[in-house]
């Protein structure tokens, strides 16, 4: 009686497969909002037919596998886009903070420079006036203080970034350790020929998070295994083993990143770490160095001009500003006015109290090349341009890379995203198929009863 029992087993296979398909759909629906989840589809095939006489008879349906739909190339592109965008985003937020130091044209360092020369200008018709001389000292002091503040804020921002670097490295280490753990699990499952899709999704998600921090490249090593390293070759995860990155203070006082004793700080090219380091090690030092150049050049020029004249007591002029350090580093942070007595401003060119002859030399500093071959105001306005331009360019780059990332995510969604509409219609389909198979079984059950009872009608319980 292989016929009816055979048919029974065919119908049974239908029930089983429908159940699994339903389960898969249910899993998709449950994970519709899970980050990084790739929807699953069931691959079924008709069972190998058997030969009965001259006929080939089907044996029902067989489940081949449950497949996760994802595009590995897309994942690579998404990782790269994430690294790029995180890098730029980290830069942008720091640069926006940095540029607030240079936000106003009517106040701030530029205005202070203008006001200093204006105070000299006001002194000119009345060079012996103590009140007007005091104004010169006051405006000199305001300039020095604003340079101190700007340099101080930049240094503070820089040292805060050291904390950020340390935190980020900690996060990298915890992610690579997690990834190594997942790799282990995947490897175990693959070796047992079992489906590791969910774990692969998890792994992909972790790598994506890692891409937000650092430039990570994935190398497939066969059998589902992967190695992770930075684009410069520093190992992050090798097989099922993760490498730990450490931070130590470098000779510049900043936190440097080490991998197996090698300093990899300047070799990172993506992720928020690269962006943070770019600002900490390139942009901020560049601006600080320029502020130092301005402070040193300005102080030296004013002091030299003062030395050419005579003060109110007929003595040769001394320093108005403190002498900048040799090598100019720290000039902006440490600039102060060296005198408090207004009579020490050397306005006179011949020692008489009413002569303003040396004020011309002091005022001439406004049109002298004091830093990088530029006048004080030109130098400062160029600095403002540079800061604004860098920030504006990075901002445009962030917009562009965000847009690319979004497009890639849309593509991923279209391949791997769960569509509730689709799952709903599938569920209807699977339910119908299940009902049909069940109906077949009921029918066969009745037929079997007929066969057994051979013509005598019996009720089937």
């Amino acid at each position, binding site marked *: 009686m292989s016929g009816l029992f055979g048919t029974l087993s065919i119908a049974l296979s239908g029930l089983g497969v429908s159940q699994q398909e339903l389960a898969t759909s249910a899993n998709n629906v449950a994970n519709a909002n899970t980050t990084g989840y790739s929807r699953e589809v069931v691959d079924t095939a008709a069972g190998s037919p058997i030969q009965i006489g001259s006929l080939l008879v089907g044996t029902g349906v067989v489940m081949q596998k449950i497949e996760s739909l994802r595009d590995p190339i897309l994942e690579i592109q998404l990782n790269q886009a994430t690294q790029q965008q995180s890098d730029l985003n980290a830069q942008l937020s720091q640069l926006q903070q940095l540029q607030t130091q240079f*936000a106003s044209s009517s106040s701030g360092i530029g205005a202070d420079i203008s006001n200093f020369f204006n105070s000299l200008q006001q002194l000119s018709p009345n060079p012996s006036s103590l009140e007007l001389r005091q104004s010169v000292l006051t405006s000199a002091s305001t300039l020095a203080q604003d340079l101190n503040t700007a340099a101080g804020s930049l240094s503070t921002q820089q040292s805060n970034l050291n904390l950020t670097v340390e935190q980020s490295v900690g996060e990298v280490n915890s992610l690579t350790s997690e990834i190594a753990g997942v790799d282990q699990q995947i490897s175990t499952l693959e070796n047992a020929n079992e489906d590791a899709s969910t774990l692969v999704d998890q792994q992909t998600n972790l790598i994506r998070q890692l891409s937000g921090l650092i430039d990570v490249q994935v190398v497939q090593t066969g059998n589902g295994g992967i190695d992770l390293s930075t684009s410069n070759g520093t190992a992050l995860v090798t097989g099922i083993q993760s490498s730990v990155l450490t931070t130590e203070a470098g000779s510049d006082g900043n936190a440097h990143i080490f991998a197996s004793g090698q300093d990899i700080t300047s070799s990172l090219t993506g992720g928020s770490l690269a962006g943070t380091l770019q600002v900490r090690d390139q942009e901020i030092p560049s601006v600080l160095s320029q502020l130092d150049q301005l402070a040193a050049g300005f102080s030296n020029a004013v002091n030299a001009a003062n030395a050419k004249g005579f003060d109110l007591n007929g003595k040769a002029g001394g320093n108005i500003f403190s002498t900048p350090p040799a090598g100019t580093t720290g000039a902006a942070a440490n600039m102060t006015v060296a005198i408090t007595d207004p009579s020490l401003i050397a306005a006179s060119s011949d020692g008489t109290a009413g002569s303003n002859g040396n004020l011309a030399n002091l005022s001439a500093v406004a049109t002298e090349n004091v830093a990088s071959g530029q006048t004080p105001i030109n130098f400062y306005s160029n600095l403002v341009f540079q800061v604004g331009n860098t920030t504006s360019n990075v901002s445009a780059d962030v917009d562009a890379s965000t847009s690319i990332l979004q497009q890639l995510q849309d593509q991923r969604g279209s391949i791997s*995203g769960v569509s509730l509409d689709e799952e709903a219609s599938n569920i209807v389909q699977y339910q119908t198929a299940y009902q049909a198979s069940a109906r077949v079984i009921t029918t066969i059950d009745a037929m079997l009863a007929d066969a057994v009872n051979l013509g005598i009608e019996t009720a089937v319980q």
Partner: protein
Amino acid sequence: MRVNPYPMPDLLAALNQSEFEAQDAALQISTGKSVNVPSDNPTAAALLVENNDQATFNSGFLSDLTTINGQLSAADSTLSSVQTALQQALSLGVEAGNGTLSSSDQGAIVAQLQDIQSQVLSLANTSYQGNYLFSGTVIGTAPYSVDGNDPSGVKYNGNDDVNQVSVGSGYQLAINQPGSQLFSATGNSVFQALNDLITAVGSNTSVDTAVTELDSAADYLSVQTVFYGNALDQVQSQTTYLDAAKLQIAQQQTSLGAADLSSAATELSSAQTDTQAALEAISKFSGNSLFNYLS
């Protein structure tokens, strides 16, 4: 082609963008500036620094011109008074020289001439806002003191220095004349002439010569005084020029950095419309799938 079934991130991104644009427009309206941070317009931000510098210099020059105007006017009016006194001395000298006066009348004229001499000395020692006007750059010392040993009767204690003040880019104005050039120049000294006239009238000898000497010194002083009139004229025209420049500089500042309020208002309104539309689209989107329709 299968559509991305989860468009929410894109919709939220669009919402975020329109909210950002609304905030940016609102900031421009509330600050009145189109350049609030350098990245808004790096070139304009740099030019605004230069513009502020120009504005500061411009107002500095204008302020100096006011100060200088006061100094020059004080000197000029003092010198007018000196000229008046010298003219009085001249008529007295002419009167004494016509030979018809008695010796007591001569005596009276000498006394009046001596008064005028004191007056001229006092005028030459005028100070303005605490500084002597005619002592060159030795402004703390009175230019002339009585000196019986000097033939002119006075000693000059000042120097010959002239102060220049910058009143425009590359434009220097001399703002004083030393007494040594006005009152006691060699061969044209007002003090010498006055003293000589007093001596001449007192001894009734060579009065005509003394009158001629004083006349010549007064003329010389008159020519030197032209300096002040010229300087005041230059102050006037430079002030006019700088006032016009001030307007230009202010206009440039506006064109560089002021918010175009009407276009910012339009941007704000359109960004708000976009935000509203995005919010409505998102709200219609969420929650609908085939599941809602299967019983």
